């Protein structure tokens, strides 16, 4: 149940963000990223679904330009529900960076982690309201 990890990859398979909610070793992480990229990049994104089986769980992913946003959830979770989490995340990034692009995520990776932390805590979705989440993020900035 819940999200097991969230990963942002670009088309070349380079990692842009990785948040693991279960402790796994660093070599396993690397292997996982490789497998995910292989699984997802080969898919036709217009004609194929956004769900892929991965080991004993399911990947829910969406592509925005050159970036893949990938969630890993367990088999009994609601795929459609979690698929909606990705646009929520992207919309928030988009509002925050005022038109987000890959470079924003690369250079401000620590901010992206913080934003993600406002949406998901320990693999559980903590809020689905875009404005509330954005307000919380702005509050941070004011504080810093």
């Amino acid at each position, binding site marked *: 149940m819940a999200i097991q990890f969230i990963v942002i990859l670009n088309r070349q398979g380079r*990692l842009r963000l990785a948040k693991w909610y279960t402790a796994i070793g660093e*070599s396993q992480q690397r292997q996982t990223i490789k497998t995910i990229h292989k699984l997802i990049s080969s898919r036709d994104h217009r*004609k194929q*679904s956004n769900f892929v089986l991965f080991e*004993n769980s399911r990947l829910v992913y969406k592509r925005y330009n050159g970036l893949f946003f990938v969630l*890993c959830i367990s088999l009994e979770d609601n795929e459609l529900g979690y698929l909606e989490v990705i646009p929520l995340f992207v919309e928030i990034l988009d509002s925050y960076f005022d038109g987000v692009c890959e470079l924003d995520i690369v250079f401000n990776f620590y901010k992206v*982690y913080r934003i993600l932390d406002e949406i998901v*805590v320990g693999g559980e*979705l*903590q809020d689905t309201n875009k404005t509330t989440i954005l307000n919380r993020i702005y509050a941070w900035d004011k504080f810093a």
Partner: protein
Amino acid sequence: MPSSQMMVRLQPFGISFDQSLESLIKGIRERSKDSEKLAAFLDDSIKECKDDLKDADLEKKSMVILKLAYLEMYGYDMSWCSFNILEVLSSPKFQHKRIGYLAAVQILQRQNNDDALMLMTNQLKKDLNSSNSIECSLAISGIASVVSTELAHDIGGDLVRLLNHSKPFIRKRAVLALYKIFLKYPDSLPMLFDQVVDKLDDPDTSVVSATVNVICELAHANPKNYVSLTPRLFGLMKDTNNNWMVIRLLKLFSSLSLVEPRLKKKLLPEIVHLMCTTDALSLVYECINAILNGNMLDEDDVKVTELIVNKLLGFFKSDDQNLKYVCLLAFIKTCRIHKELIRKHSKILLSCLYDNDLTIRETSLEIVNYLVSEDNIVTVIARLLVQLIPYDEQQARLDDMNDLLVDDYHEEGEKETDKLDEVEEVNYPYKTQKAVDISPKYKLRVVEKIIEICSMKSYQNIPNFDWYLGVLKDVIRLNTDSKIPVIDAMISEQLIDMSIRVPSIRAALVETCINLCFGAEMSEDDIIKFNKGLKGCIWIIGEYYTDYLQGSIDEGQDSDDDDSTKEQNDTQLKATIPQIVDRLASQKFITKLDNFDEGNLTILAYIESACKLFGKYCTLLGKFWSREDFDTVLKLCNALIKWLAQFCLSTNFEVQERAVSFTEIMKLLQDAIVQAMKELKESQTAEAPNIIVSGYTQMFEISAIKPISNALQQRIEQPLDLDLTTSIDENAMSTFISELHNIQEDDVKITRENDSFDAEMYEGQPDLHQENSSESDYNDDTHIQGNSKQEIDRRKKEREEMMKEDPYYITSGKGKKDITNGNNNTMDTQDSIHTEQSIRKHKTRKPRKVKKKKVLILDEEGGNDETALSVPSTERKSSVKKKQNRFLVDSSGLRNIDLQSSDKISGDGTGNNTGEYKVDDAELAEVAELRKKLAETSLDQANKDNNMLLSINTAADTVQVTRKKPKKKKKKKKESNSHKRKSHKNVASIV
């Protein structure tokens, strides 16, 4: 060395961290095309960071840590800097602290960082209790990511305090983080749970939602603890408009409904209502999932099922692949409950088999089992088979198939307009199959599926076995290029199975096998490539060669040819045994087979079959042989001895032993033949050597091989409570012996009076009579002596029925043969019903489809009922389950926590749920209070909704039920035990 790298090295001190990080990222980006340079650059950067960390300046340190957190993404193990992270983490400046937490989450979350975490505990405590809510929230998410068992121990109390924090976003995070604590330290759950549940009444909706999330996760691990919360949760579901929370609530209810089936009555109408009113597709999907996963759908809930099926079909018709996929998953679940209802829509669902999304294709394989029937199996198999064709050639084939599909679609459209309930189906846009290059793994799945659906229920769906044989041949042929050895083995096993069960196909099968093993068009390399399948094929040739000679070979689809010319061709084309042995002797590769896995087993099968064929040849010649016959037999014998010689020095003992034994036997036969030839002199024919006709050939021909249910052995297990040591009745043995004596006398009488009638049968089965040894039976038997012919026949049939079920039945060779024949007769009558139906169907079928053929299928010895077959399959399932996913959250600890046990304050939750329930007074009082409380809270809402009154009742009920639950379980166990015993009885009573 590139100048930019030098620049990085010479970077001046005191640069602001943004710049430093930026130059690092830029440096990486510049080298991203050249992996060698990049690796060197990363190594240098890390080295530099290491040096920089020696600096005491916290500002600089935090900058380095941030860089390391970035570099960590490139797959470096950074745990060496744990202590520096802690330093930064404990800085009074928020800027630093923030970086420290980020790094801690990214770097310390890995295993083996317990030391660092221990040192972190104090700082976490401090930050959790900080007056600054942002620091506090930082600490909470830090805990949620890195928590270990020790940390959970130490910090749980502090987190719980935060549940009452003034800021809702802290409360919300605290609830979620507590779940992580429970995971690591399950024993804390009984102590803290009440406070978590209180958050269901939090004024802030997002806190409530988070709490539902946590309870949902907890209930997933151990639902029975949370059944008592149902009324409250139910109220939440009705009041909220937060779809995400409703999704979680539905998931929660489906867990609860599994342990408390009575919830269905209340939940199902509400979920159905929700499903029909909401616009959110994810919610509709969750409703369906909740109903299916929560076991809320029975076979008599036809209306709800129809509703679900219609909703799902709606999903299906949308062109959205995502909806299609989830819908397919839901259909797979529905299939298990309502096969018939789904079958109506089989056409739409089967179109998934050739969907352009491979994931959907693969998933749909799971549903095929339920949808396939005698009528559509040919198209289904064609759809599957075409995917095995090499990519380049696929499209041409598919064009033909798609054309047919279009015709089919229009035809169906015209035909079915008068059938109202299926109009919907016609509206579905037909899809055409496109060529797809598939992976070997998927290919294997497809082949497995083909075999599975065809052999399902003793080949019930196969319209014509010649067609099926053609399919299998195609699979073998398509597998020659892209070699997957398992497939050959699977197919040859399937061929064996068919040859045993379906007598009518044996001739064609042997023909196929001869082609595969000795065919002129097969080069030696081809045959070696097929090495995994050889064993089965050569066995079939040896075992069923006689059927091959006797039967005419029907070439499946081309059966329209004139029969008479065909038969002629057959006799001309049929390979004779000397030809086969000849070919065998020329195949030098056989000795090399032991280079392959199980190759020795193949050689064994070759030896056995060659010798068997020799026996068959002798039998076919009859009892009197001409001089010519003697010559050929002798030649054959010599050839075999020569052929066997090459295996007499095999390194494999079994092969060696088999070869040596058969060589010796062959030499004996050789002597006998030579001897007989001497006696032949001038006469035209002479009696065949006795050792061959009534010795050697008997070895292979005396008893036919029969299909045996593979669960037969497992089914017979000794019931646990069956005591075999004490005698039930002291006198039983003496009574039994006297009864036996009577029966034996009786047998003798019958044998005499009914001359040939089944003399062997009776001899063969004294055990049967022991069973029937009651007085009345005895009378019955004497009745037969007054012999009404019908009576005899009836009894004969009865006996045969019984023998069919009798796994312990051991007979002498002759008797066995008779029984097999008898079996065939009964089977014929059974089968004719089946074929009659198929003939009726046949009239309405289209000409291009495969013709159905009346065929006898032998039943398995020991029955092939599903309970028997399910034994090995469940075993397989459980072994699959054991493969744990390393990403899955391990909530096994939570499963042992029992919130309702009396010693919940002590916190010792382990092993409680296995213990007996002792309802003590204190607990009863507690329950009463809980009920009262629930009643009150529900009453508040009752003004709005009269329905809630019901929920009070359910609440009361459910509380009681949780108490009873363990007992119930036991009862169920007993039931299932007794059920098992019953099935044993069925078997045992016949013994």
